[in-house]
């Protein structure tokens, strides 16, 4: 497939010093009970440029979340190489921040204390972190709920708090696993704009798993389209739409064109 050739070309070109992350022939095989094996990821290779927002787009169950977890160091690849910022990823790193599909807030902690949880676990300057946590809550618009318990917040507000928690230790790499997947359409669009704002502010390299084509196009510098399991790269799309992106862009022909290309890579449209 032409797309695959392009990816290989990207990798070959990727010896440029700017590369923040590089993934070479990443493969993941899960052992099933009864001795059977299932290949979740066949071979994924691409490079991640510093400061870029990359979406992993693919059908559900295709292995994109597995790939994200490998990048985050939560699980290990069966073979292949995963390097972030010059180090081989074998376990989670202090420079990573993770946000999950569920907010995963602790119901017994106030919003502020939830946001400060990573600092508490890793150690770090508490007064500084407190100030930063409050700034982040301000940025996502839930500063007045700092003292509230998560149970008192709506789903969208909980996900905002979870985003603050992922950012509180100023990660160099933000990994997000369908963070807006559980939200309704309007909240989702609001959160996408918020993510773009945050990203403009923090400049963190971001990798985001999604199964929404329009979300991937709206947010990303680069879309890596995953094929069905076992996952390979179906297409590598550089989204040339300028930032800052606004809602009007969603209805432009350039936007739709990229959506079409992604759709073709997914096999939805011919």
């Amino acid at each position, binding site marked *: 497939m032409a797309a695959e050739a392009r990816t290989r070309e990207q990798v070959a070109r990727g010896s440029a010093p700017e590369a923040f992350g590089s993934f070479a022939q990443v493969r993941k095989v899960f052992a099933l009970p009864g001795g059977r094996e299932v290949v979740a990821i066949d071979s994924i290779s691409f490079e991640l440029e510093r400061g870029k927002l990359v979406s992993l787009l693919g059908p559900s169950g295709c292995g994109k979340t597995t790939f994200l977890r490998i990048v*985050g*160091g*939560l699980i290990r690849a069966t073979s292949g190489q995963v390097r972030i910022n010059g180090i081989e990823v074998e*376990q*989670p790193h*202090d420079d*990573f921040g*993770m946000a*999950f599909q*569920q907010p*995963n807030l*602790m*119901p*017994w902690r106030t919003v502020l204390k939830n946001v400060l*949880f*990573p600092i*508490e*676990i*890793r150690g770090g300057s508490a007064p500084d972190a407190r100030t930063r946590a409050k700034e982040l809550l301000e940025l996502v618009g839930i500063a007045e709920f700092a003292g*509230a*318990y*998560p*149970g*008192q917040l709506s789903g969208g507000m909980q996900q905002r708090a979870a985003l603050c928690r992922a950012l509180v230790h100023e990660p160099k790499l933000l990994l997000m696993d369908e963070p807006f997947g559980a939200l309704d359409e309007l909240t989702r669009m609001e959160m996408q704009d918020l993510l773009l704002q945050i990203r403009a502010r923090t400049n963190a390299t971001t990798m985001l798993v999604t199964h929404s084509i329009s979300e991937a196009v709206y947010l990303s510098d680069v879309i890596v389209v995953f094929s069905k399991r076992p996952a390979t790269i179906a297409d590598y799309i550089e989204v040339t739409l300028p930032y800052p992106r606004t809602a009007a862009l969603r209805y432009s022909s350039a936007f739709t064109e990229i959506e079409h290309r992604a759709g073709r890579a997914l096999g939805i449209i011919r």
Partner: protein
Amino acid sequence: MNRRAHHWLYPIAGFAVILGIWQLYADLWHISKIVLPSPADIAWVSWQQWSLLLRETWPTMLESLYGFLLAIGIGVPIAVCVANSRVLNLSLYPILIATQSIPKVAVAPIVLVWFGLGLESKLAIAFLVAFFPIVVDTATGLQATPGGLLELARSLRASRWQIFWKVQFPAALPFVFSGAKVAITLAVIGAVIGEFVGSVNGLGNLLLSANSQLDGPLAWAALVWLSILGVLLFGAVALLERLTVPYAAAGYH
């Protein structure tokens, strides 16, 4: 405001109706006080003999409370072991369940032989009955830590110790309290069983001796005081729960 009032009003009204019917039945049919004293008789004796009843309540309360606290002190650590070690889970759990199926009333005479007529034997029986719900509920709670929270902790490279104290244990607290609320009422029952089998004081002892002297109203008064003791101890645990797990009231669970 209105809903809160209903919350109190309905049970009180229901209670009043039952007491009214009981009183009428006892008065109109001239039921013997030995068989079934009327609510007024019981209230009168409770008022007349309040210092005796209070004096006998004290040891029963201590027996229940100490047994309960001992059950917490031993039960929670055992639950932690069972929940975190596969070996201990497999080897201890069946034993726990087997011991639970032994009727505690049948064990009481043996415990009495071991610990004598004093507080210790009652404490031991209260402990035995309160122990099981605490272990089971705490272990369940510790094993039911939401996977997402564990994943989060792992993504932050939290140590085992941090995961236990900052994630697993607080997540299990609502379960610990639901076990504790069952356990505290069982502890009172355990203490009374102990007093029935052999004792020199306590409400169970008073009930038994009043009954043997055919003093129906006093026996019933002891029963009422026992229920009040049970309700108060339960209330104390529930209050502690609200103070320790305030988020539960904020819409969680």
